[in-house]
């Protein structure tokens, strides 16, 4: 049997748990929006020149212009993004881990191996040391 059919059996659209998911998104969405609006609505705005200037622990700031940020910071951010996206795929898999049998487990293992190879490559290339 073609494996897509196989997947269909698992993710049959049963409306019960979908409703809960929808509810969760609704509540948190509503809460977030209300808080932001309340903040905008209630916070009295009274600006003065000092408030616009950056907060430098109370003393006058030393540098007028902000220089371009060195490349190292971008590297760290990129590596985080990379591994973070990969981890996201583990969550749904962990949810249905029991039901989907061993073939899916092998597929996931292969996926994991690829990540680890990438991780080792990054480590050896010295992406994790700040200063080579």
């Amino acid at each position, binding site marked *: 049997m073609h494996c897509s059919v196989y997947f269909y059996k698992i993710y049959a659209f049963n409306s019960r748990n979908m409703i809960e998911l929808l509810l969760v998104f609704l509540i948190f969405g509503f809460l977030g929006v209300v808080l932001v609006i309340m903040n905008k609505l209630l916070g009295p705005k009274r600006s003065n020149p000092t408030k616009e200037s950056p907060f*430098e*622990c109370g003393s006058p700031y*030393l*540098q007028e212009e*902000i*220089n371009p*940020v060195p490349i190292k910071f971008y590297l760290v951010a990129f590596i985080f993004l990379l591994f973070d996206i990969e981890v996201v795929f583990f969550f749904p898999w962990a949810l249905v881990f029991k039901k989907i049998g061993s073939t899916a487990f092998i597929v996931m293992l292969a996926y994991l191996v690829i990540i680890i190879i990438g991780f080792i490559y990054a480590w050896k290339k010295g992406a994790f040391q700040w*200063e080579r």
Partner: protein
Amino acid sequence: MSTKIQKEARRESMLLNMGPSHPAMHGTIRVMVELDSERILNSEVEVGYLHRGFEKTCEHRTYFNLLPYTDRLNYVSPLINNLGYVMTIEKMLGIDVPERAQYIRVIMSELSRISDHLTCLAAMAMECGAFTVFLYKIKAREFIWDVIERTTGARMTTSYIRIGGVRAELHPDWRDDLKKAIVETRKVLKDVHGLLDKNKIFLNRTRDIAVVSAQTAINYGWTGPCLRSTGVYYDVRKAHPYLVYDKIDFEVPLGERGDNFDRYMVRMKEMEQSLRIIEQAMEMIPEPSSPLQLMAEGMKPAEAIKASRAQKVEERIMLSPNLEGSEKERYKDISTAEKKYTVPPKEDTYTNIEGLINHFKFFMEKHGIRPPKGEVYFSVEGGNGELGFYIVSDGTDRPYRLHLRAPCFHLVSAMEEMIQGHYLADIIPTFGSLNMIGGELDR
């Protein structure tokens, strides 16, 4: 306002100031840092944000009135400042202090040293992220402050150690208070050893960071735990023994590499030594001449004055609670016999004229404590190092010039060299391990 660092900074490096109002800078230091993406190229430390004109105020106050000011110098271990100031004047006046008062002074200043180290390491650990250590240590400090409060009346600004002795006798159940505080502190020390000593994060942030060699430390005039962390054996209590420190045996812990972790470890070991000193002093302290009991019964001061006017036999006087411990018969143990240099006990002041005259002359303008002309330098082992008082007196009751040798002034002056080349995040544990106290640094 172009500072030195702005002139010398390279075009593309980032200038940042960890200004006075920064949690890790204890609110009174401004470190201006030139960064090349997290690495510090150049830094400038600006102090003086807590300069309160202590030395100028000293020239306008009498010797006795200056005691509260000395509490607020190194406000983490106030009793040691009192001790240093008072012993300098005693060295000038040449008076000696009764045995029991010396032991009380040793116990109190060791308690103050423990609270100094507890606060310093609490702040250092919290700034490195270990908030539980901060809570544990401040809790342990509460127990110690309870003992200090019951004897001196104040948690922190005690001005308890007076010229010629101490202000009041210990309260009756001081031994089990002290034992409870010692047990609690030992428990917290054990916890913190477990939490921090092998903690990977703490080790990475403090091991081999801001290493100071013994030679540079001496050249910077370092004394105290920071000098001992570089392996140099110098402790004022051993080098120039004062009070009864020569009778008490205690070791002086030394570090090897002089980095942040050694400064932390030396302070931890020093706390254990201070606990040992307190325990030995508790045994060796001579017994008071009259048994310690709380509120003495007796006449009210007003009736005593009427009775003494009518030459009736003068009984004991019931003093108000905050004068507890300074009754007449206990006075011999806690204050020097010389009449001129101490406040007479209240029984004398209320009942006989000689006590009244002494009291009046002690506090009157130009009549109080007048040390002979000349200058003196005396130092005690403070929480951060050698706390020295240099007093020039011109015979009047006000010091002509009083200079404080602040130990953490020399520690912080080495700061610029210590953080050179490290990461921005290393400033925090380095600064925490130096235990900079604003009141003592800027005076």
